[in-house]
């Protein structure tokens, strides 16, 4: 077996395969970052709207709560299928990469909105009261008072969620999105040793995820230390 690996390795790591794998790795990272980035923005809007007051906004709040609670309970693979067949059913042209990004954004929105909500809740109610007594509206309170204080609470878990999701995006290979796992499947189908191919794919995921995990841990530690404004 070892002989086979050694004999196949030079053929496997040729220029074209290397570029192919690195591009696929780039796609994996790209769809995670964009999907979670959209999720972050939408999550913020959800939290903002959930803090609305009054009976008129009650239906909106209920829909948003239902969204957040349900979409954290559906597997990513099922979301991928629903989005895929959904866009086909509506009849709009979306690339497979686009389908994957939309699916990531749908789930990321639900999870990250909870992270943002917890971050806002970590700011004491008195800060909100003080701001509103000084005639800040909700958006001004968030922008000038709450966000500058809560981003240190929000960013580490949101970042950890994104790093976590890098691994979940492997499921997008099922649709045929050319990301890292799909690239591995293609190469394995060409008759290259599966140990070599999937070993390499695992190593590349590790190379992507591990440094980011460490970066996230460092961020969390740094933000937790008091005294930096």
């Amino acid at each position: 077996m070892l002989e086979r690996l050694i004999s196949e390795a030079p053929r496997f790591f040729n220029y074209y395969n290397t570029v192919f794998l690195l591009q696929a790795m780039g796609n994996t990272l790209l769809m995670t970052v964009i999907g979670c980035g959209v999720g972050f923005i939408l999550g913020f809007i959800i939290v903002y709207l959930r803090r609305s007051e009054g009976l008129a906004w009650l239906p909106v709040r209920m829909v948003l709560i239902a969204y957040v609670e349900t979409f954290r309970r559906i597997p990513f693979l099922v979301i991928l299928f629903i989005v895929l067949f959904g866009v086909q059913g509506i009849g709009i042209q979306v690339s497979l990469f686009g389908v994957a990004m939309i699916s990531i954004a749908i789930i990321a929105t639900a999870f990250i909105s909870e992270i943002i909500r917890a971050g806002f809740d970590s700011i004491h109610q008195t800060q909100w009261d003080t701001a509103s007594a000084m005639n800040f509206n909700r958006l001004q309170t968030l922008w000038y008072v709450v966000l500058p204080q809560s981003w240190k609470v929000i960013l580490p878990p949101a970042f950890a969620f994104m790093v976590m999701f890098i691994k979940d995006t492997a499921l997008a290979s099922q649709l045929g999105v050319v990301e890292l796992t799909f690239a591995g499947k293609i190469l394995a189908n060409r008759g290259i040793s599966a140990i070599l191919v999937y070993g390499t794919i695992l190593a590349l995921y590790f190379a992507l995820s591990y440094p980011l995990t460490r970066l996230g841990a460092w961020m969390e530690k740094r933000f937790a230390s008091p005294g930096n404004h």
Partner: protein
Amino acid sequence: MDYTFQFGEATRHLPYLLGGAWLSLQIGFLAFWGGAIIGLLGALGKEWGGPVVRGLVNAYVVFFTNTPGLVQIFFLVYALPEVGILLPPYWAVLIGLILNSGAYLTEIQRAGFTSVRRTELEAAETLGMSLMQSVRYVVIPHIAKVLFAPLSNFYIWIVLGTSMAAIFGVEELTGRAINISSSNFRTIEVFIITAAIYIAITVVASLILALIGRHGFRVKAKIF
């Protein structure tokens, strides 16, 4: 948008899907408890093992938590035959999920161990408790209380994670949804019903866990 939903056709398959959901719950259960045992050993090894044991546990945890479970299972299914190990898909999926959850549960349970404070043990000692008694009455209840919420969340996470078994032909909930959709035009309805079943089974699981937590471990769990 000229698509009209028709759930009639899809609901015909509800019993079949629910049968798949039962299998999903079983796989989730096995993956959780298998992982919990590995995680307990891992956490013990990391806390009290020698440098070699700690190094091995660390390598295991770091590798499995930084690579996708799906690719780990690909490796079990497609790479192991090259060295003469042939695993049936169900077992490959189960072993993959157990190894994966074992890595996460090592970290979770270790956090529980480190949360026991020395002062609590000292307090138990001043009350005249033996080591066994303080473990029984102080350490374990404390760890159970600290760990209950993260373990509950992880349980839900692993149940959702079992859907990747479908990729290897295991006929759990997602697998059965794929089966139906390949012979049926109401694909989207089938997957929406599938999603609803996932929501239902995880909500029920959360409720049961919250009840167990409240009565068994005096944990005031937030269900939603």
